[in-house]
């Protein structure tokens, strides 16, 4: 793998897409298909979550099988905020990011001492711990999860309307993508990718490899927390299912389908996977078989993912 660099036409494509996405709720409403606004919001939120994992996995080169812990923690923090009477998303969302980021900092600080498969396994084990901790707390609903009595408000505006939440998710995704795009081209982004490629060399050059990795891991956790908090608003529930290790697996699948280490890999993966699910589930109840075969095909024949067909990483 090499350094990520966006191609020239990617930027213009992004602007066109963004404009189209801005008009989507109006289009759907005029077609009497308001239901799909919620679905589109779900896609945006999962794009955000997958992108956060891509930061850790694709750019940082850390194969984490515990990303669901931060995604789920974000959802729970949002629900806990609301339970405590804090219903302003402008405060709750940053709190979710902070909480999930700190959790990632803690887990990362221990896990990053290990290498290879041990890292995969220890992140998985920590995520299981987080899962059991959340479902054991009776005040947080136990196995039932913690419901939100209603959606939050954003700067005073209610998010009860599906379109409002859609625009919030779209905004969050756009901002995160913009910042990540900058980050990957900045010194930090270059260094973390260089560490992924050759850790020993970067170490020898005097880079604080451990710290760089840890920061990257925590950043990924924080963004996942943001996605989780948004999802809790969409579904009205901070669910233990978000914390399960299969959720980590699903996010991993999205990133791989989209393209590991491509800025838009997470987004592409989330869109492809959720669209496939929505379409195929209508025709074939056992669509997981199709998905599994597709994944196998990708691993065996196109290990770089869908985004690789568009973007070109250069050395």
């Amino acid at each position: 793998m090499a350094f990520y660099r966006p191609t020239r036409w990617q930027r213009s494509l992004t602007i066109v897409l963004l404009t189209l996405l801005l008009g989507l709720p109006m289009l759907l409403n005029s077609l009497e298909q308001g239901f799909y606004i919620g679905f589109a919001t779900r896609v945006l939120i999962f794009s955000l979550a997958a992108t956060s994992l891509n930061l850790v996995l694709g750019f940082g080169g850390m194969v984490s099988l515990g990303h669901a812990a931060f995604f789920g923690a974000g959802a729970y923090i949002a629900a806990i905020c609301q339970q405590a009477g804090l219903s302003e998303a402008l405060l709750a969302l940053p709190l979710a990011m902070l909480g999930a980021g700190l959790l990632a900092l803690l887990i990362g600080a221990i896990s990053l001492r290990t290498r290879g498969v041990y890292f995969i396994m220890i992140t998985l084990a920590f995520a299981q711990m987080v899962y059991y901790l959340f479902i054991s707390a009776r005040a947080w609903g136990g196995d039932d999860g913690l419901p939100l009595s209603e959606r939050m408000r954003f700067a005073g505006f209610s998010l009860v309307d599906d379109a409002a939440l859609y625009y919030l998710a779209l905004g969050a995704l756009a901002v995160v993508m913009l910042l990540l795009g900058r980050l990957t081209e900045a010194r930090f982004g270059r260094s973390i990718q260089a560490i992924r490629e050759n850790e020993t060399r970067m170490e020898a050059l005097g880079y604080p490899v451990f710290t760089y990795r840890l920061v990257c891991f925590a950043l990924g956790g924080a963004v996942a927390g943001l996605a989780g908090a948004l999802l809790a608003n969409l579904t009205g529930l901070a669910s233990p299912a978000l914390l399960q290790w299969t959720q980590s697996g699903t996010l991993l699948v999205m990133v791989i389908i989209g393209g590991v280490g491509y800025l838009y890999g997470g987004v592409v993966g989330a869109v492809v996977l959720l669209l496939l699910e929505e379409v195929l589930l209508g025709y074939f109840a056992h669509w997981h078989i199709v998905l599994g075969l597709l994944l196998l095909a990708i691993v065996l024949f196109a290990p770089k993912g869908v985004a690789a067909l568009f973007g070109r990483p250069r050395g």
Partner: protein
Amino acid sequence: MTQLILEQALNGLQFGLMLFLLAAGLTLVFGIMDCINLAHGSLYMVGAYFVAAAAQAADSFWIGLGVGVAGAAVLGLLLELTLFRQLYRRDHLSQVLATFALILIANEAVRVIWGPAPLLLNPPEALAGPVELPLFGETFFYPAYRLLIIGVGLAVAGLLYLLVAKSRVGMWVRAGASNREMTEALGINVRWLFTAVFVFGAALCALAGGLLGPLLAVQVGMGESVLILAFVVIIIGGIGSIRGALVGSLIVGTVDTLGRALLPTLLRATLPGDAAATLGPALASILIYLLMAGILFFKPQGLFPARA
């Protein structure tokens, strides 16, 4: 009190030995081929379904167990030849993904073939009740079927020990785990060794699934929770080490059982009611993960590292 402690110890042993059947195959595949197999739990599930289906068809638990284990071995062989051979050379990420895909396929395929409801598997009639043993002047009760599981588990553990520690194949396996290139250079056909180990692992999975079927439930998703435990076991024991897998299994089995049995009572005695009621189950369920993190912190390669 003796009854309680002895009964819980036997429960821990029974749980640990079943974990060992799963962990043994997993640790060898992991250690020798350097391949993460998330679908190991699916082999356990599919094996259990094979056993349950065969037992229903033959109306005999023992025939079902034999046929099911053989069926799982054949499935393992096919999987190894078609898929896993391609995966050994790939990076861990590809292995995680491909085997995750296998989990999805396996779960859904089982749902298609056997339906969404759990399958029924009953223990042999003769073992359905308790065994009564006179002990220190008291009568000691223990379910007969669980005793059988303990017996089979001990037998398999002994057999594996002889096989790995004393036989020529076992020597190759140990050599493969500690240094693969050197083993290949010595002219051992590693390719077929891999196949044999994988098939053996699949058969052990089915044995565990078939034995636990009557006790637990043969259902979709039964492999996932146990897979994580098996991973914890081999990380604690050291990847690639059979001895580590055995010790790790017994530690995890005992700690988990005793934790669940004793922690709530212990905490109730020391903490106020509400805090104890919340903390007890929470602590009991994360105990083994805490243990694993602790062991990794002091011995990053596990208790019995196999690699030189």
